[in-house]
């Protein structure tokens, strides 16, 4: 953009930038305005805007400041659009109609170019064209070559809004892409002829022209395919660097364009085939996010480029210095291109229909003739002409502008009503169903078989051969191993499933609670018995399919299963929002921290709930509370250090405390205690959870107060939190939102706060209303633990000196009747480091 404003004065730069941004806004508005866009194609509006802008600038500055620069157009704007078109080209459709596309592109364009050129020359000889137009036959041929090619940008812009059926679209659009080779060659050959002079052209040069056509077209295609292979091959190894995948796609596709341009090959062909060729492998290799990025970035860039092109076409038209008007030339050109386009299409279709299985109807031919839009390529080419060599350049420029405007605006405006009036079969905007996917593949096999039986080596035969080759060699080379093993049908199946799930969410809001589920692509399935949510449903139907799109990321099955399990479990529980967040965003970036984080979250919430319970009744012991908190932190940290210190005395007072809590109304927010009690309740919660919480649980096990019925430990560990919660006696009393104190609780504080811990414990002991029971329990516990079984060597009896270590063994737990459930997992975390200070007090 900025390059375009090649103005000398800075203020005009600013003005132009203002205008440009204004027009982008307007373009967006037009895009949204239903009334406009249903009647007037966007391209028309953009050109009109450009005209207005050009007029304003002309009035303000007395001269035109900017126009569509060919270098900018060919280096940046055109490749953006072609890249998008090529990469998202429906390959199957393209190759199914390749014969027709090639015919129209090569024969049709040649026919148009020669006929227009010669006819214009004839018109000149006959005097229809003014004498001022100093042009020889070669000039007219040159002009005919550049004006005859159907323009991909214009065709895309207009046809995308018309929605004709896909066969028709692919033929016109494919033609507009492929005819680039013809245009380039004709243009260059004529330019060189003009340069050397018509009289010096020898017969051999014509043959050279033909040869160069072959080289330009085939060479361009080859360059594109080579880059496609390279691109596919590179994306095979980007698993660790997903972030560069989209960039890689853009770069390689663009590089294909530049390379072809460098060697004077057909750049558009190169880019198109690079896109077509690489699409399948790249899409399979890169991650879902990269796919989305590529898609939206390409589309956005393409529509930006399109906007710029059309606006600047309009602006460039308002430049009297650039063009000279000749009514004869303009009208003759308009008439000739329309006539020859129609004649060419009808003639070629007649020939093609002799070979086509599904003939192109008359209606199709009308649309094809009428849809032969000329666009910015012709304009850029005509601007590129050398005024010294081609004397009539200004006349050609004016004519080209008129032709482009006429085709894009008049034909673009009228083609929609025409299509409606002719009842051209429209494209159905419909997603494929799994049945179609299956049967289409079956049909391919059947047709191949029929051809085999009939003894033909037709299209299906060769397509089958290609697919064999692709499967056996190309895919092996270009696809990731994990992807290669996947079947396309399976992929399609997953896509459909995901699409359904998403649409269900979009329509029905909360999927997880919707009792009845009807998927749009399922004909008349009103409800599924016993299927209550999509996750369930999808899991039953597709092993690896889940709502959170993880399937796409090639996560091994076990992980998927596990995640799905977690997902499901958490769907209905307290932590759903957080959990969802995790499942959506943490997949790639913190795969390891997930468990830990989840664990911490559960922990925090538990803390809060506990605190909430006692909040209203507690007034005192702020200090204690804080110190307890610290204590907990210490223990937390210690656990991480996996120091095995758990002194019985400590445990005992806490136990007392717990009891006291229930009875004692005056307690303040006692975090530490709360935590402990809570933990006691939920020892089983997280077999899979991180060491931190596990160790905490372990610590509390001995304290288990007259325990609420401990929930049976379910085999799938993650599910337990919810059930545990429901068993908590105080859980129901949760009224107001929990305070955020608990957030701090999880923080780890340095060891030097051990002193505080000691103090708090001692104070707790003294305060707890029945101090007596605490003391007795302690010995019992320790005795039990001793009876329990082998202790680690580091075990120190309670009351021993600082640094004593206590580790609770499984047997000990078993003996503990207070905690009946087996705690296999919690054992790991059992090693808790406590300061022995408290122990000594006991």
């Amino acid at each position, binding site marked *: 953009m900025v390059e375009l404003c090649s103005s000398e004065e800075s203020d005009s730069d600013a003005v132009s930038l203002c205008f440009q941004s204004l027009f982008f806004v307007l373009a967006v508005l037009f895009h949204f305005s239903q009334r406009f866009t249903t009647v007037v194609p966007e391209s028309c509006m953009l050109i009109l805007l450009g005209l207005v802008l050009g007029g304003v600038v002309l009035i303000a500055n007395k001269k035109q400041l900017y126009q569509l620069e060919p270098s900018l157009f060919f280096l940046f704007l055109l490749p953006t659009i072609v890249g998008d078109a090529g990469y998202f080209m429906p390959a199957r459709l393209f190759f*199914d109609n390749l014969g027709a596309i090639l015919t129209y592109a090569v024969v049709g364009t040649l026919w148009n170019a020669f006929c227009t050129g010669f006819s214009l020359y004839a018109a000149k000889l006959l005097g229809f064209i003014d004498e001022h137009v100093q042009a020889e036959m070669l000039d007219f041929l040159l002009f005919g070559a550049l004006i005859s090619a159907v323009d991909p940008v214009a065709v895309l812009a207009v046809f995308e809004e018309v929605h004709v059926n896909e*066969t028709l679209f692919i033929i016109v659009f494919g033609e507009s892409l492929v005819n680039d080779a013809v245009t380039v060659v004709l243009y260059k050959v004529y330019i060189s002829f003009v340069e050397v002079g018509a009289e010096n052209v020898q017969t051999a040069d014509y043959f050279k022209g033909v040869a160069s056509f072959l080289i330009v077209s085939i060479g361009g295609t080859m360059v594109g395919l080579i880059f496609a292979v390279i691109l596919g091959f590179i994306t095979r190894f980007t698993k660790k660097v997903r972030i560069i995948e989209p960039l890689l796609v853009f770069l390689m596709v663009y590089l294909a364009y530049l390379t072809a341009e460098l060697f004077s090959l057909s750049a558009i062909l190169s880019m198109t085939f690079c896109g077509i060729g690489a699409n399948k492998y790249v899409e399979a290799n890169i991650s879902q996010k990269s796919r989305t990025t590529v898609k939206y970035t390409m589309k956005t860039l393409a529509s930006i480029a399109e906007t710029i092109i059309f606006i600047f076409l309009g602006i460039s038209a308002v430049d009297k210095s650039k063009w000279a008007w000749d009514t004869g030339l303009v009208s003759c050109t308009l008439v000739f291109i329309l006539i020859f386009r129609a004649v060419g299409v009808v003639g070629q279709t007649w020939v093609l229909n002799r070979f086509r299985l599904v003939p192109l109807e008359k209606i199709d031919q009308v649309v094809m003739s009428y849809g032969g839009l000329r666009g910015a390529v012709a304009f850029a080419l005509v601007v590129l002409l050398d005024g010294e060599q081609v004397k009539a350049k200004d006349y050609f420029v004016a004519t080209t502008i008129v032709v482009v405007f006429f085709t894009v605006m008049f034909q673009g405006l009228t083609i929609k009503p025409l299509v409606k009036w002719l009842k051209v079969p429209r494209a159905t905007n419909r997603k494929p169903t799994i049945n179609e996917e299956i049967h289409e593949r079956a*049909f391919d096999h059947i047709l191949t078989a029929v051809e085999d039986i009939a003894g033909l080596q037709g299209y299906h*035969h060769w397509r089958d051969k290609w697919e064999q080759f692709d499967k056996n060699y190309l895919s092996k080379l270009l696809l990731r191993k994990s992807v290669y093993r*996947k079947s396309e049908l399976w992929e399609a199946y997953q896509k*459909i499933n995901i699409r359904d799930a998403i649409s269900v969410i979009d329509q029905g809001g909360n999927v997880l609670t919707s009792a009845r589920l009807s998927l749009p692509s399922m*004909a008349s399935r009103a409800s599924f018995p016993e299927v209550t949510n999509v996750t369930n449903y999808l899991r039953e*139907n597709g*092993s690896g399919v889940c709502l959170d799109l993880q399937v796409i990321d090639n996560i091994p099955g076990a992980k998927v299963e596990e995640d799905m399990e977690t997902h499901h479990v958490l769907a209905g529980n307290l932590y759903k929002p957080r959990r969802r967040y995790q499942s959506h965003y943490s997949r790639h970036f913190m795969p390891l921290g997930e468990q830990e984080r989840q664990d911490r979250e559960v922990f925090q919430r538990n803390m809060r709930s506990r605190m909430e319970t006692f909040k209203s009744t507690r007034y005192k012991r702020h200090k204690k509370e804080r110190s307890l908190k610290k204590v907990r932190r210490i223990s937390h940290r210690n656990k991480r250090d996996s120091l095995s210190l758990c002194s019985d005395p400590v445990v005992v007072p806490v136990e007392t405390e717990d009891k006291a809590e229930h009875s004692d109304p005056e307690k303040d927010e006692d975090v530490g205690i709360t935590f402990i009690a809570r933990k006691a309740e939920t020892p089983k919660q997280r077999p899979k959870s991180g060491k931190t919480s596990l160790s905490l649980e372990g610590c509390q096990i001995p304290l288990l107060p007259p325990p609420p019925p401990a929930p049976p430990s379910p085999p799938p560990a993650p599910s337990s939190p919810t059930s545990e919660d429901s068993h908590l006696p105080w859980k129901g009393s949760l009224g107001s939102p929990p305070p955020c104190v608990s957030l701090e609780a999880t923080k780890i504080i340095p060891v030097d706060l051990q002193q505080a811990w000691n103090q708090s414990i001692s104070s707790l002991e003294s305060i707890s209303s029945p101090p007596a029971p605490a003391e007795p329990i302690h010995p019992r516990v320790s005795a039990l633990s001793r009876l329990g079984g082998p202790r680690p060597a580091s075990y120190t009896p309670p009351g021993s000196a600082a640094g004593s270590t206590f580790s609770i063994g499984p047997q000990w737990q078993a003996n503990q009747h207070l905690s009946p459930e087996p705690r296999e997992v919690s054992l790991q975390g059992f090693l808790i480091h406590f300061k022995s200070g408290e122990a000594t007090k006991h």
Partner: protein
Amino acid sequence: MGSSSSSRNKIPNAQELMRQTGFSSAHLLRLHDRFESLDRDNRGYLSPDDFEALGGLAMNPIGGRIIEAFFSSGIPWTFPPLSGFWLISVQLTETETKKEHSKSSPAAGPGSSNLYDLDRDGKISREELLQVLRAMLGLQVTEEQLQSIAERAIQEADLDKDDAISFDEFKKSLEKMDIDTKMSVSFLK
């Protein structure tokens, strides 16, 4: 295709066939030639063995099924039925065939349904669909995935909830596809 009358005479009922099918004599001749080359033992009819000997069909993942579908009537093909077969199936699928370049879409109609329908009950059951899928997809997918695909396909197409796809349902599920385009093959040149 300069067809000599002498070779046309080899074909029994040539005139009548041409009248019935609208094939030109060249087409008939072409079919007959193909028939004879398929019929390696000169038995005067085609058997599944003849088809299985074709290299392309042997390579075809569902080649066996296709052959089965072709011979589903149980009657070995003699020559006139060969062209008759095309004709019948063409009529069933309502594709125009009377033009010079005859097109046929034998498999789009009952042929394709036959392809799946093993037990000839007029319905594609889940098991039958699974078998075809298995043949087509080979080792690329796990059995579990196959199950899910088949399940999904049946759910999609199964309108009367009998857990199977009848021929009508089959047609309905494909009505939005451009069958004529996708299932036409030009086999007479």
